Structure formats: structure tokens, C-alpha cells
């Protein structure tokens, strides 16, 4: 009996199917919990799913690389989903075109603040140079951020993790901060979440409304462009890479 179960486990745990299913199940569990708690911000579905899966991998002694063989099918969809952000962009184009100047000013302010303050705080608190450089592009969507980190001498895989943690922080604390600042316009709320917290912030923004989500989606693309140009420049100006 035990012997058979073990055989089944050994077989399944080597297959992509198991870890793909686990990824979806963990996210669904996180999402259900989030909804059941009346969308309590700190019960972020991504954070819960990551904790559940990392715990399961640790308990079963499964290496991350084997997990990723299954999870890559979900990871792959980040590309087409990024392209799909064009749809809300076009739906709200009339409004976006009218607001190009505030959008440009907000982008420069947010992008510079994100990169410079992250590097300054990490440096000031004694983080290693590698960590500081991996931190610089953390507000940008994962694939871009990893590319930037590689270019300036950070660790791309650490950057991916910092990017996702940033997204979770933005999604959890962002809407509350914006309310405290007295910011009610959906365009501004969504855009700020997208600039600072990329796709995870955008997912949160879509929960606040479709206009909010459209401006967040716009911010992902724009901040990816600006940060890709800006951070390598900043890093070389500061003499870090």
C-alpha cells in the first residue's frame, strides 16, 4: 500500500502535470480565501499561493527547477497577457490621449522615485552591491526587470523575486495609501499602481474597476520602456556597474 503510494508519488512528482495543477490549486485557494475575507488586502492571492507552494516544495524536497518544469506553462502566459493589455488601452484611448501630459509627468516621477529610493535605502542599510543592483529595476514587469538586472550586474533570478514582492507590497498597501493621500480619480489610482507595482498592481487595479485597470496596464508598458533606458544610465552614472 505505502509502497504503491510512494511509487505513484515518485512518478507524478517528476511530471509537469502535478506542479501545473498545484500552481492552479494554490492560486485558487489563495483567491478563495481573499474573496471570503471580503478582499482583505493583506490576504494577497499571489503571496498566499507562493507560500503554499514553497512550503510544499520544501516539505517534499522538490527542487525549484523540477517545479518550474510544470509551472512554466503558466509562466509562459505572461507574454500573451502583456500583449493583451493593448485591449483595455484601446478601449480607453480617448481618455488616455487627452491626459498625455499628466501621464508623462507621473511616469517620470514614479519611475525615478522607485529606482533611486530602492537603491538608496538598500545601500544605506548595508545591502551588498549585487542586491542593490538587483533591486534597481524592481518596479518593472518581470521579463524586462530581469533583462535590466543582467545588463547592470545584478542577479536576474533575485530581481524576479524582488519584482514580485514589490508587486505584492503595492497591491496590499497601495490602495490604502492612495485613499490616505485623498486620491480618488480612477485614472490616477490605476496609473500609480501600474507604475510602482507592474502586473500585480494592475491585477489589483482591475479589481477596483476597468478604467483603473486600463491605466495600470498602460503604466506597465511605459515604465518598462523608461526604466530600461534609465536604470543602466543611473547605474553607470553612480559608478555601480
Amino acid at each position, binding site marked *: 500500500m505505502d509502497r504503491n503510494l510512494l511509487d505513484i508519488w515518485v512518478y507524478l512528482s517528476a511530471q509537469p502535470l502535478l506542479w501545473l495543477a498545484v500552481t492552479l490549486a494554490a492560486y485558487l485557494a489563495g483567491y478563495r480565501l481573499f474573496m471570503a475575507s471580503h478582499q482583505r488586502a493583506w490576504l494577497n492571492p499571489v503571496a498566499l499561493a507562493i507560500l503554499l507552494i514553497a512550503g510544499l516544495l520544501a516539505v517534499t524536497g522538490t527542487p525549484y527547477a523540477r517545479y518550474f518544469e510544470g509551472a512554466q506553462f503558466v509562466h509562459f502566459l505572461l507574454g500573451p497577457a502583456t500583449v493583451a493589455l493593448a485591449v483595455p488601452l484601446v478601449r480607453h484611448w*480617448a481618455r488616455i490621449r487627452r491626459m498625455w501630459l499628466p501621464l508623462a509627468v507621473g511616469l517620470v516621477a*514614479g519611475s525615478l522615485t522607485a529606482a533611486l529610493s530602492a537603491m538608496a535605502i538598500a545601500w544605506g542599510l548595508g545591502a551588498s552591491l549585487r542586491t542593490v543592483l538587483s533591486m534597481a529595476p524592481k518596479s518593472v514587469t518581470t521579463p524586462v526587470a530581469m533583462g535590466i538586472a543582467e545588463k547592470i550586474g545584478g542577479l536576474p533570478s*533575485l530581481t524576479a523575486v524582488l519584482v514580485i514582492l514589490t508587486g505584492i507590497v503595492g497591491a496590499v498597501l497601495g490602495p490604502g495609501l492612495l485613499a490616505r493621500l485623498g486620491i480618488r480619480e480612477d485614472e490616477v489610482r490605476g496609473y500609480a499602481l501600474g*507604475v510602482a507595482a507592474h502586473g500585480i498592481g494592475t491585477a489589483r487595479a482591475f479589481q477596483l474597476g476597468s478604467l483603473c485597470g486600463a491605466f495600470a496596464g498602460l503604466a506597465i508598458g511605459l515604465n518598462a520602456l523608461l526604466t530600461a533606458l534609465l536604470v543602466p544610465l543611473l547605474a553607470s552614472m553612480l559608478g555601480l556597474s
Partner: protein
Amino acid sequence: MVPALLCLLGCQLLGEALVQLTRAPVPGPVLGMLLLALWLGLVARGRIPAALGQTADVLLAHLSLLFVPAGVGVMLHLQRIAAEWLAIVAALVLSTLLAIAATAIAMRAVLRRLPPPADDGDGDGDGDGRDVHG
């Protein structure tokens, strides 16, 4: 559904190819998004095919699910994070809050200097035949 998926993947593919050709500092999917937006705006004049709209909405409704696999990679960096946890946590939390506040405050400050817009709704593109500039 299939044409819509092909459309998304095709734009991504085109984006990746252009990035390889031009060595642009942008990732392929972001360029793909730009290409699809240009096509929908200029060629389709802001009219989004129903199937494409539905497929995009499905993908974006659970956008955060797609970040889970990369996020689990946190287990590869536990040692570094444990060694530098204070700097990492403080930098992540403070800089993210600062970036949200800076974006929102700067954007609202400029927004308030603009003349109030004649409200033409925020529906499905303006559909008035004017060119949409990318």
C-alpha cells in the same frame, strides 16, 4: 478564441523578432502590445473584435496567477534574503510606497492645471474616424 490567441501570440512573435533585429532595450511582449494597440487603433479604427476582447479579458482577469511560478523562486534566494532581510524589506516597502505616492501626486498636480475636459465618455475608442496617434 483560436484566432484571438493567434493574434496575441503573433504580436508577441513579431515583437520578439523586432527586438532581435533592432536590439531595442524593450522586451518583445511590450513591443507586441504596442503593435497590437497600433493595429487596433489605426487599422481597426478602435473597434476591438469580440473574440479578442473576451480572450484578453480572460487573460487579464487573473493576471496575478501568472506571477506565481517566478515568485516561488524566492526559495532559491532565502540565504541572501535572510542575511540582508532588513535592507531588502525596508527598501521594497518604502520605495514602493514612495513610488506610488510620487506618481499619484505628480500626476494629479498636472491634471489639476489642465482645463476641464469636454466629457466624451470613455467608451470603445472615439470611432469618429480621426487618426489615432501612437
